[in-house]
């Protein structure tokens, strides 16, 4: 757990090795006294929307467990689910929705019950400065404005339409973009006046796109479940990784990318 102590221990070891002139990598930091020291590779299959957050979690986890090398396998939740069900090796699965995780759990592929580790809400995405002066979902029904959504076939399109339906707004859509990246690009360029994306997508633009909150009572929340896999080549590290994601440190990282805690 104490990453600082491990780093402190590792420093003299590396320094000694460097003096000896035959550095062969920091392999000597293994077996550093803690009885539960984890080792080996850990393959984490995670939904693409988790890319940035899990990259930071990977660094933090590796700092806390220097013997473990985490590899992220990013993709759409449905293709990751297929990989797991077809027997591709993996230790942990983190999905962007419950339906894909449920199918994996029902097939008996998860070690224990999946746990929700993050939630993602929808937000109105606007060009910086909100030039069209949009104040709420009703404006997406204004025919003088250029409105984009994700195509109905994409998950963000399904959620975006659900939000509008909850709010009783019939949108006057000018473009159904094939995925959330394409939608954000056109909003950021100011070619579209508004779109609906995940909160995390808005944050990922680093200020290029402004987010306008959608009232809780009409908003749609996506649950992100995580589970260690029953055939994990590295089951000990898999269990510790899942705990780490659910821990305060893991949750703080996720919150920084716009995910809310369950």
């Amino acid at each position, binding site marked *: 757990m104490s990453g600082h102590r491990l780093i402190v221990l590792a420093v003299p070891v590396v320094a000694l090795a460097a003096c000896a002139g035959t550095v062969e990598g920091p392999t000597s930091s293994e077996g550093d006294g803690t009885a539960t020291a984890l080792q080996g590779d850990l393959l984490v299959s995670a939904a693409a929307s988790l890319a940035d957050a899990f990259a930071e979690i990977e660094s933090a986890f590796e700092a806390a467990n220097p013997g473990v090398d985490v590899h992220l396998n990013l993709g759409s939740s449905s293709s990751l689910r297929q990989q797991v069900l077809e027997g591709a090796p993996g230790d942990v699965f983190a999905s962007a929705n419950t339906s894909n995780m449920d199918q994996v759990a029902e097939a008996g592929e998860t070690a224990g019950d999946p746990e929700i580790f993050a939630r993602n809400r929808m937000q109105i995405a606007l060009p910086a400065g909100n030039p069209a002066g949009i104040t709420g979902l009703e404006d997406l029904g204004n025919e003088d404005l*250029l409105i*984009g959504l994700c*195509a109905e*076939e994409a998950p963000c399109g399904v959620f975006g339409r659900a939000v509008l339906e909850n709010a009783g707004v019939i949108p006057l*859509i000018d*473009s*159904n973009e*094939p995925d959330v990246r394409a939608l954000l690009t056109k909003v950021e360029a*100011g*070619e579209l006046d508004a779109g609906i994306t995940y909160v995390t997508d808005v944050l990922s633009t680093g200020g290029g796109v402004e987010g306008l909150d959608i009232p809780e009572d009409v908003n749609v929340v996506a649950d992100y479940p995580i589970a260690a896999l029953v055939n994990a080549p590295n089951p000990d590290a898999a269990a510790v990784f899942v705990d780490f994601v659910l821990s305060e440190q893991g949750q703080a990282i996720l919150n920084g990318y716009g995910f809310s805690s369950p």
Partner: protein
Amino acid sequence: MKDNTRERRRPGRRPPAVLIILGCLGLAVFVIPLAGLLARTPWSDLPRLLAGDVVTDALRLSLLTSVVATVIAALIGVPLAWLMARVEFPGRALIRGLVTLPLVLPPVVGGAALLFALGRRGLIGEPLGEATGLLLPFSTWGVVLANTFVAMPFLVITVEGALRNLDQRYEGAAATLGAGRWTVLRRVTLPMIAPSLVAGLVLTWARALGEFGATITFAGNLQGRTQTLPLAVFVALESDRDTAVALSLVMVAVSLAVLVVHRERWWKAL
């Protein structure tokens, strides 16, 4: 070995086996994906799938925009080809490179460039929109423009090549006999390059029909307004594979019909 000696004895009787094998591999590259498409086609459902409004809207829009783009390419591309072939001017090599650029650029890059130039916040698009209220992105004209950008090089290159290979003595003779420049162009030059012109037009139209990247980047995707056949295929692949296959089949059928018919008549011009 036996085959080799036999061939040496009777040259020209049969093409070399190596060429046959490699040629068939070449053909397989084109045929195998098509076979995959046909194998996935839900034949019994096809009439129902093709009657859906997504398919009919996309087909209508694709035919309309590709034909309009071809007409525009003819109106401005042929004069450009003539200037490039017949007029010496500084920077002609650069212009030739620029004209062929859309052939090698990823169409998505072309679409993004169009957006930066003619989008609502674009270099020309913003003043144009303020002056006239004209908005090209997310409109059918945006699709036409994207099609023209990507497809016109086929026409310009073909026509320019034909003009450069044309024996100018015919035009000279007509002029000597008293024909004006316009008459020479209309009665001598254009008829002589007609096969190349038609081949270029057919290629341009076919490229415009299949245009995807620049269209979705510049014009977006809305059924009935900007959703052409390739866009409809792409979006349908995510969720409704049967419709995607049916749409693909329509594209293959339309393109193949036109290309086969014209190839026999005009291809030699290339």
